[in-house]
């Protein structure tokens, strides 16, 4: 099923998507329509153009592949499914995401993966091929964030204040230099072979999605950022 999004308001477009009977849907000429994939179940969507904000919000068991850039709040509170973006992503990518995966070929904006969390077999993953802005993984409670930093050359691919309030999960950063300006709640170490074994499947998947040769991801070290404590606020208060 092919849907042409030209001159369609998001409400109309999403209504059409929801009422499509076929499992595979291709949406063409998308230009800023919001909430694509929200409230839809068990579909595989291919999107051409530039989807608007909150694509895949509360996403559940849907695969969305986007040929183009995506805007802000993609995968907000996503529960399951896979989002693959052949382009760049805006701010708050994967906010409070609980399951599934988001792969972005290029850069992503500020506040990526804030409050990402895991639950039982739900282990969310965000992989960003390029660089990300500040505030990556704030309040992260679970899951995995991998930033590959393609195009970052000799500088760190993450902005400032990464991991403030982090109390679970893991971040991995491929970087020529050790990322600085991290808050006291987190520790950073060079990845050992055990860490590499964890992220290798993600790297493989990234290379497969975007048809990238893995060699170019081997020239820089990977850093592992993880929380110092599971309960960072425990000693902050005295109750009476």
């Amino acid at each position, binding site marked *: 099923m092919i849907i042409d999004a030209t001159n369609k308001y998001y409400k109309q477009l999403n209504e059409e998507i929801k009422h499509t009977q076929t499992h595979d849907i291709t949406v063409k000429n998308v230009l800023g329509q919001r909430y694509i994939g929200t409230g839809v179940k068990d579909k595989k969507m291919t999107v051409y153009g530039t989807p608007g904000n909150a694509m895949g919000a*509360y996403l559940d068991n849907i695969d969305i592949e986007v040929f183009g850039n995506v805007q802000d709040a993609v995968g907000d509170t996503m529960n399951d499914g896979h989002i693959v973006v052949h382009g760049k992503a805006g701010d708050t990518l994967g906010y409070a995401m609980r399951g599934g995966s988001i792969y972005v070929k290029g850069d992503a904006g500020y506040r990526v993966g804030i409050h990402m969390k895991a639950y039982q077999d739900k282990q969310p993953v965000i992989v960003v091929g390029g660089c990300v802005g500040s505030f990556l993984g704030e309040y992260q409670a679970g899951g995995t964030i991998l930033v590959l930093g393609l195009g970052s050359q000799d500088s760190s691919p993450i902005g400032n204040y990464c991991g403030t309030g982090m109390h679970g999960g893991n971040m991995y950063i491929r970087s020529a230099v050790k990322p600085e300006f991290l808050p006291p709640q987190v520790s950073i170490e060079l990845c050992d072979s055990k860490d590499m074994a964890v992220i290798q499947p993600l790297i493989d998947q990234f290379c497969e999605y975007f048809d990238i040769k893995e060699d170019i991801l081997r020239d820089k070290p990977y850093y592992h950022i993880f929380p110092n404590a599971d*309960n960072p606020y425990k000693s902050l208060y005295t109750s009476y």
Partner: protein
Amino acid sequence: MGIQYLYPEFEVHRNFDRCIKCRVCERQCSEQVHYYDEEDDIMRADESKCVDCQRCVTMCPTRALKIVKTENTFRPNENWHQNTIEEIYRQATTGGALLSSMGNPKDYPSYWDRILLNASQVTNPSIDPLREPMETRVFLGKKPHDLEFDSHGELISKLPPQIELEVPVMFSAMSFGAISENAHKSLARAATACGTCYNTGEGGLNKSLYPYGPNTIVQVASGRFGVHEDYLKAGCAIEIKMGQGAKPGIGGHLPGRKIGPKVAETRMIPEGSDAISPAPHHDIYSIEDLRQLVYSLKEATNYEKPVIVKIAAVHNVAAIASGIARSGADIIAIDGFRGGTGAAPTRIRDNVGIPIELALAAVDQRLRDEKIRNDISIVVGGSIRSSADVVKAIALGADACYIGTAALIALGCHLCRQCSRGLCNWGIATQREDLCRRLNPDIGTEHLVNLLTAWNNEIKEMMGGMGINSIEALRGNRLMLRGVGMTEKELEILGIKHAGE
């Protein structure tokens, strides 16, 4: 350890003539105040642990116990009150920010207590609710500007989604985790029995409570705990929590020790991990961003559920409410500075926010002035203590009220304000299994139903006295209100006259 400066606040008075050493007090006290001294064959108490929850007093079969505020005082000082000094001792020994529970206990003015209701005399006769129909049903949601009917008089216009309430009082947001499963069950069942709603708070909704969905408001807050599509569709409305009266401007934190298997399952987070709700939603920095979240929720639920935006009553509340009304939200919930909480930093709880009475009056007036009042319903909470407060709130412009503390009191809460410790002896604010069992959900439900039934009857009586027979006719009817002992400015903000005028 250095010197312990803090003297116990309460004394346990035991009448030894009455005490039969049955040790009920000992078994009932989760704070471990009471103990049996075998050597002397006598019950003793460690008063330093007593929080005055009144559990032992209530359970003592011979009424041998009472808890009394200690007469021991520091040298009286009108500037440095004893508790001010003790708070400094506490911080000096721990280095921690002070953490408290329940609502602001300070001596700020309660405007409800300075507002008086009208009644009919001679002209415009009063109505006896026993013999006349009285309408306490309300609909919350956007009201259309005009309606279209076909030639048979049937409505053609598609109405925006509404919450239908038989009584203008709902149970406000309290999460499973902050309160016990039995407390949640009681609220859910009572809301269903009374035709009103309870609110999940930011703790998700356990599948076992899905049957109460038509009377459930599901909350989405900054931590998005337990939020997924089925959850959003499970309730009758979705509430976006931007703020809370007890702690405006800050987030929440359920400590890992309260996250047992069932709480973890409901919040969809691992057992024992902290549940942190950041202060802001990090994807909402503007009204436009809020609109984005409102509509993402509507998209996810096919525009079938009204969306509530809950904020704390703060200084600029009228302008914020105006923005919320334009964000596409169907209902705004405003929580006054006296609103309760499972835990809040004391300084925030006691010093931030404004009284709900003033906030409500300002918001209602602003929305009327801007001609957008019908685009949004107003729900207020933050210390609604009686049906009189409800009537006054509605006359000031509210569509309905939220009660939290009052509901917990109906479940047995004695306001000892120790919720954050998780040792609630009444089985309400705890996850400890033996304590949870103390709250029987059947009895809890019955008490809540009784409370709402009583309030609803009182509301009808008060309305009848004013010659008003529906909430619709009471809403925003400020002529029914008069102030006593207020300044002109206060009366101006409340939009009411002084008594005698």
